[in-house]
């Protein structure tokens, strides 16, 4: 079994790379420390996305973020997908690769959604085995993101945070902690988001996502199509105090605003934590 153990690298503050910003990024070389790409968008042979990515990756570190691994599915791992991912990583040379702790496809059908796992011993064993297989197949460490959810299965035997803590204990896997997703799930399931964040070992956090959502009062939907709202900023700052420097990025998936707007939001993110992380003497990047 592959064991990948190492210091986590602090890349600074990044943005999700979106096609509507390609040209402006090349022309203006904005003050962004790194970009995260959606892996599946580049699983094509050529064309404009590749043309721009080649130019952008010459100037910025790149992280790959996938949505289709379906690591939690009871179906055998999709080796065709993993082959594509491996080839992509060889071409792009990302700092790391992430996907989601969920299932997306079952019975040959792809939901194109990040469907939640029941938090059971069976799920833990299944994920532990699959994570090990995927890392062996890819020959590298994978990072996994917490998903937002709108339901709790009656079958769940533990909380999501205890589940994740158990998972990293068993696999040594690292997490991409989406602070917005924690907030969304906390509202939808009425739990304390800081209890969630504090339970998961801090040295297992490789990256942070910040994003927005839509609040319907009775529930919150994780849309990633709005500016980051105050409650998510508050949670991020509180978490950052305890976490120390972790590579942080803004993930905007819909209603994409002009690049300038995201750069302002990214500067705000940096301001939120620079004093905290400087105090700890570890804020060396940027």
């Amino acid at each position, binding site marked *: 079994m592959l064991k990948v153990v190492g210091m986590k690298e602090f890349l600074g503050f990044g943005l999700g790379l979106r096609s509507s910003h390609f040209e402006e990024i090349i022309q203006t070389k904005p003050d962004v420390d790194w970009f995260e790409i959606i892996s599946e968008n580049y699983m094509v042979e050529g*064309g404009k996305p590749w043309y721009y990515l080649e130019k952008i990756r010459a100037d910025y570190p790149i992280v790959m973020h996938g949505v*289709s691994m379906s690591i939690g599915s009871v179906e055998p791992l999709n080796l065709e997908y993993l082959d594509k991912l491996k080839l992509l990583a060889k071409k792009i040379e990302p700092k790391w690769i992430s996907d989601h702790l969920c299932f997306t496809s079952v019975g040959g059908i792809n939901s194109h959604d990040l*469907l939640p796992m029941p938090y059971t011993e069976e799920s833990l064993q299944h994920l532990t085995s699959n994570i090990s297989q995927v890392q062996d197949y890819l020959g590298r460490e994978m990072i996994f993101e917490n998903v937002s959810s709108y339901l709790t299965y009656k079958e769940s035997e533990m909380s999501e945070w205890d589940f994740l803590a158990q998972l990293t204990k068993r696999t040594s896997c690292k997490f991409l902690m989406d602070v917005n997703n924690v907030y969304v799930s906390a509202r*939808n399931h009425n739990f304390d988001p800081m209890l969630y964040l504090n339970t998961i070992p801090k040295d297992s956090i490789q990256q942070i996502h910040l994003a927005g959502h839509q609040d319907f009062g009775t529930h919150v*939907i994780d849309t990633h199509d709005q500016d980051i709202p105050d409650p998510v900023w508050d949670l991020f700052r509180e978490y950052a105090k305890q976490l120390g420097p972790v590579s942080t990025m803004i993930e905007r998936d819909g209603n994409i605003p002009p690049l300038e707007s995201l750069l302002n939001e990214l500067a705000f993110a940096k301001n939120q934590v620079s004093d905290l992380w400087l105090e700890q003497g570890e804020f060396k990047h940027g």
Partner: protein
Amino acid sequence: MANLASIQNEFMNLLQNKPSDLEQHVAQQGQLNALERLSIYTSAYRIRLTQVIEQDHEQLGKYLGDDLFDLMVKGYLKKYPSTNNSLREFTQDLPQFLSDETPFKKHLILADIAIFERLLLRAFDAADDLILTAEQLEALEQTDWPLLVLNLHSSVQLIKFNTSAVESYQALKSGVTPPIAEVDKSRFWLIWRTPNKVTEYKTLNEEEFNLLNLIIKKQNFSTLCQSLIKSHQHDTIAAILIQYINTWLALGLLKQL
């Protein structure tokens, strides 16, 4: 208690609007009941896939109008749920669906517009082949020409329509009324991605369409010349073919030998 496999299967059944007992596995929490919680997922599934069809088949959507588009989406989601990791491939069976299903199959132009929009996507994502230049061809020895096999750039797509599919696509994109669907003779179309990464299309005459198809079939220069014998004087054929090749070079249709 249900196991992991059972829960996952029930979830996929629910999304596809098949009988599912997932509701029985959802805990009661807060202000939303189990059905309301599940509807968040079913709505997201339907909306996400509908958006893909809207985005990849924008002009087809305009041609159909809202009611028929909704009917098409509902039928397509049921008959062809996504089986690919990439949403780029989700509408790959849409032309077949439109050819098979009532009321769409009565109108051949619908499948043709869907095919055309799929080919635009295919050209957009095709491999970045190196383009053949006139200088590279000029460097060939005279004796190499008869057996010369040209190669088309990976983005090149050729399609023959017996409807006004592309003319209608153009009209809808420009915001004008499309022409009648029926046409008196076949239309031949070339779709490709230019060297500056822009997807283009143009009409071809039947002769040029056939020549490009021969190139796809890996036929050599002599065979291409022979295909022109019936329609041209013998001593003009090589010059005509060279003229075509110069046009293809200028458009970036040929990849390096």
